[in-house]
């Protein structure tokens, strides 16, 4: 099936994007708020208010790729363990990127496969500058597209919300979301 990019969004989009909105139940890390923000912008520009049209949402996958992973959540767990403190239970729920995907899937009614990956060769270089960070986000986006293409080609989905999300220790966060699907979705 030939697919096209039906909608696109990113964070930050402009200078006004300085603080990601929090997501209830998620703490300490910008990662899940970043995924939620780009997903919301992308999906609402195409579907309007949530949820997605039932017949389309049921056939839409979520593919999230990241070159960083959720560093802040991993660090928060490690800090608590090292200090001999109890790990905050909320960190358990957000400890895997699938949780952010599940949040988006439930909110928008996207019932296709959920896949979270890290790009292979693309996750090796370290990001020390803004330029490299942008490069890593675009590589993650290419990776998420490749994963989504497998799901669509295989028939497990007709469309996919494709997300690249990189969130660094210290708070910098860069994300892009694209909805890919059949071209006829855009004309009806």
């Amino acid at each position: 099936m030939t697919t096209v990019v039906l909608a696109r969004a990113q964070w930050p989009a402009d200078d006004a994007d300085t603080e990601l909105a929090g997501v209830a139940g998620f703490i300490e890390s910008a990662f899940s708020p970043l995924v939620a923000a780009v997903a919301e912008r992308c999906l609402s520009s195409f579907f309007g208010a949530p949820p997605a049209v039932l017949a389309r949402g049921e056939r839409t996958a979520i593919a999230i790729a990241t070159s960083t992973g959720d560093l802040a959540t991993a660090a928060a767990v490690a800090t608590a363990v090292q200090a001999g403190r109890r790990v905050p239970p909320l960190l358990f729920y957000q400890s895997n990127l699938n949780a952010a995907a599940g949040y988006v899937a439930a909110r928008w009614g996207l019932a296709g496969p959920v896949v979270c990956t890290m790009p292979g060769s693309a996750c090796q270089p370290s990001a020390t500058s803004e330029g490299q960070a942008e490069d890593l986000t675009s590589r993650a986006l290419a990776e998420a597209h490749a994963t989504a293409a497998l799901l669509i080609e295989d028939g497990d989905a007709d469309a996919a919300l494709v997300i690249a999300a990189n969130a660094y220790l210290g708070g910098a966060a860069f994300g892009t979301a694209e909805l890919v699907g059949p071209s006829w979705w855009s004309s009806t």
Partner: protein
Amino acid sequence: MRNIASRPDGPRGRPRRKAEPGQIVITGLGVSTAFGRGEDRLLDGLASGQPAFRPASRFDTGGCRATMAAELAGEPKLGAEIAAVTDQACQRAGLDAVSRAEADFLLALHTDSDRARDPEASDVIGAVPAEVAAATGLPYPARIYTTACVAGSTAVADAATMIGAGRASQVIVAAGFLVDADSFRLFDAGRTLAVDGQVRPFSSGRKGMLLGDGIAAVVVESAQAASRRGAEVLALMTGWGRAGDAFHVVQPHPDGTGLARAITAALGRGKVAPAEVGYINANGSGTAFADASESAAIHRAFEAAVGSVPVSSTKSLHGHALEASSLIELVVTVLALQAGLLPVNAGFLADDPACQLSLVLGTSRQARPRYALCLNAAFGGASTALLLAAA
């Protein structure tokens, strides 16, 4: 050669099924669990039916609700352990240096706890992928799967897709998880670990899951590529399906809708009827909500055939290996088909009205299923079903 349809059902004398062109086959596997290193140790553990859980030994569990885990002996290092099983799988499949260098490599991993302690870290995975590639002669992984408890099975489904589309002829899929303090304390804080020290899938009185070490690798390839090398077919990858629940951040849908669609997709792809499936290796984490949801999914997909299909969750024996769990359980399913052994669903106390399944109880038992399903479900409603046929 005898006709497949007329083969005897007994454990011996079954003719080997020849893979047909266009089919996708598994020709290599390697595995290490708390039962030990190698498929023989795992098979012994499955046959014994004795769970591998002991007091966790690598870190202090003081202040935790739970204390038990299934650990490999000694001080295993993840990169070396994954490299070892991957090498085993490649050797078993007869892949030489040239074939390895040309193969595709997919890897499923959990967050690296050393990276989590590095303030300069730029990713959560660390050096394991490069280490495994260097040690095995495989290329750097094309992709790292981190999608929780379906990471390994999603990679296998993707491998089958790549081969089916003719874009790869051989894909090596590996995965590894070693129980560490971070994962133990994280899952303990989430109140998901069984405080009674046993995993009791689908049983009333089940208290939760327990973590277990798991390292596994499989070689997936086209039947043509396998026959060119004269490689032995261990099992056929007949079908696969992936789906989501669209229900909750971490909980599965109570009606099992996503997993049911994954099962139906796998059976449909393999053109196999539910009644033909002779074993289900269930996700069966042993948590109250998830097991009921999975039971609902199996009922939804199997309908009237649900009563005749034996089900067990071997997490009750080797524990939950998170991102590696679904690959461990695929290997278990291959071994079950090969050995003619349905592993026991250990820890069972009594029936749960919410989990009315035909469980393999008491002891592991002999049977020769033609088809077996391996089911997995994860945070975010992610669900996979892999359908295997005996070779």
